[in-house]
């Protein structure tokens, strides 16, 4: 068995170390003896989404976003939407999360349309929401996820899209409704940098399980020694719990 990961726009959406998520997924497969390939698909490349088992899209600088949107709205939009409807796991972070949604409206009313693969809208604000934060993950029975958020967009979920969980510390989607992230089919969209997956290994394994079960529905991932991962997780969980209490 080989798991094929598609890393979308790695050369443009490459802020805040989000590519560490791809490293993490790859290593956690290799350590279990499962082979893994990563294809980088960027501007000008044609996307054949059915080739892949798992997708990753990160956040980037505003400057290059124009270059990207023209390209994304071509052939890639239909491919991405079809893959999502088909149940392909999709990890989207920050800018990548917003891009999967319907649009981004700036605080002074200018609207930038995105691909509408998931029903979420983002409204820009002058003030950024920055800092370490923590939220629950419903798919993990309410376990805590730790990360770092840095966004001025406030994201609101439409019908049919659920949040990942509740904000325990920090702002989350919009700093108002107390929720973080978006879940639709096997899309896992979040504002969390940090990098997210290495210090939340259960989230990494959740995504891998979704990817593998599309091929082998009864597959169970063998456990790994996550001592270092758990140290990093627990350090931040404790630190943020102190802040809140």
């Amino acid at each position: 068995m080989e798991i094929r990961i598609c890393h979308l726009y790695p050369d443009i959406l490459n802020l805040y170390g989000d590519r560490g998520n791809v490293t993490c997924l790859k290593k956690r497969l290799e350590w279990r003896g499962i082979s893994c390939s990563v294809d980088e698909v960027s501007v000008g490349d044609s996307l054949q989404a059915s080739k892949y088992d798992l997708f990753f899209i990160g956040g980037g600088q505003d400057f290059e976003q124009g270059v990207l949107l023209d390209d994304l709205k071509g052939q890639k939009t239909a491919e991405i939407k079809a893959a999502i409807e088909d149940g392909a796991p999709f990890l989207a972070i920050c800018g990548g999360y917003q891009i999967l949604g319907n649009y981004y409206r700036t605080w002074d009313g200018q609207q930038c349309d995105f691909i509408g693969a998931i029903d979420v809208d983002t409204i820009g604000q002058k003030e950024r929401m920055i800092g370490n934060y923590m939220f629950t993950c419903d798919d993990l029975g309410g376990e805590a996820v730790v990360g770092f958020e840095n966004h001025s967009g406030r994201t609101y979920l439409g019908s049919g899209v659920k949040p990942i969980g509740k904000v325990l510390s920090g702002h989350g989607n919009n700093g108002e409704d107390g929720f973080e992230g978006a879940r639709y089919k096997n899309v896992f969209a979040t504002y969390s940098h940090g990098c997210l997956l290495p210090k939340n290994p259960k989230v990494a394994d959740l995504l891998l399980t979704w990817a593998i079960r599309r091929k082998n529905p009864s597959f169970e991932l063998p456990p790994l020694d996550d001592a270092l991962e758990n140290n990093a997780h627990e350090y931040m969980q404790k630190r943020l719990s102190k802040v809140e209490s």
Partner: protein
Amino acid sequence: MNLRTSFAILMCKWCRALLRKLGRGGTDFPGKVALKICPDILGRVAKNVKVVIVTGTNGKTTTSRMVEQAMRDNGLSFFCNKSGANLLSGVTAEFAVNSSTWSGTCKYPYALIESDEAAFKAISKYVDAKVVVVTNLFRDQLDRYGEVSHTLENIKIGISHLPQATLCLNADDSLVASIAQDAPNQVLYFGVNTPIYKERVKEVSDAPYCVRCKHRYVYDYVTYGHLGGYRCPNCGYHRPTPQVAVTEVISSDAEQSVVNIAVDGKEYRAVINLPGGYNIYNACSCAAAGKAMGLDMPTVIESLSTFECGFGRMEKFPIGKTSVRMILVKNPAGCNQVLNFLSNASGPVLFTVCLNDRDADGTDVSWIWDVDFEKLCDMGDLLTAIYVSGVRADDMALRFKYAGIPLEKIHVEKDYGKLMDEVTDQEAPVYIMPTYTAMLDLRDKISKKYGFEEFWEK
């Protein structure tokens, strides 16, 4: 004489003297006091002082120390800011303490100021800079500075306050070189005409798309990061020909680099007193600043072999059976350059990272995942061990695990005292990469434990 100015200067001097009596190296607070008393104090005390400003993301401090040596060797009477006092308050304090309390005028005709890139637009309103050096622009502490195009805009605004200044711009940095387009200033480009490393780390480019038309650049060569010989196939924007250029890298080892620098077509052999390709750029920008100031060029080149940097820039501490070198890191670009240098080591090396996430470090540690620590795996047995420390030591340990470093080589030691005991209880040279506040804590520990002098005594 102006009473308010005098009072501000007096209070600034008192505060600084008091802080030092208390054993603190406070660099910003005295300036804040002065600014509170007299908000335009900097403009008053900096009047008639000819100022050289060094700004940009990486290499500000090292470049400033090089220029300092060159100015001193050329016999100029000047003062400079040190110890990272590079915000408006720190710069104000330096000017104030170097001014006469009663007349309110500066005691020196020249000043050399290292300026934080975000603070530059405020500082440049008040000082009459004759020369501005922009070293480079990389992504840095995104939680504080925002994205790199934002920093570029801030520097452009700062320069608009200084139309008379000669700009020394890095020709190899497409972002920095673009500053010349809208500025009426006289411009002097510096750059490196040749690749520096045989093998480089894998890096993310911070500026892959044309700053003017957003098409992808084509590169004839890359020195590191997004620096090199770029050109845009769409609009024709390209690397300008530098008037001050490194034409050949003759040798580069763990102690120094030897290069040829051409200034107006005349070649000089320069021995640069610090290792690493990024210091070749710093030396080149120093030569450009020297030319812009009209200094004697052979003297400037000579200064590059004698200057001392210290304060966490390849600073060396002989301890026990080994020597410890401290290299401040703060962003992926700088960290990758240290790895470029380290991974080419010819003997065994012990490597340490101290990662903090306080405000001055950048509160977001995500950037460690943009650094190609995987490159360290190529060192094999030459890498004897990796120690991680600092507030976010656990994140750093995790980064090394996923970089593929064998787990038995990764040691977590959060206590600096124990850390120093362990890393100096062996003979391989120790390279410590701390973030800013980790460096302050670590230097404090080292100076107390082994008797090295405090930085503000220098």
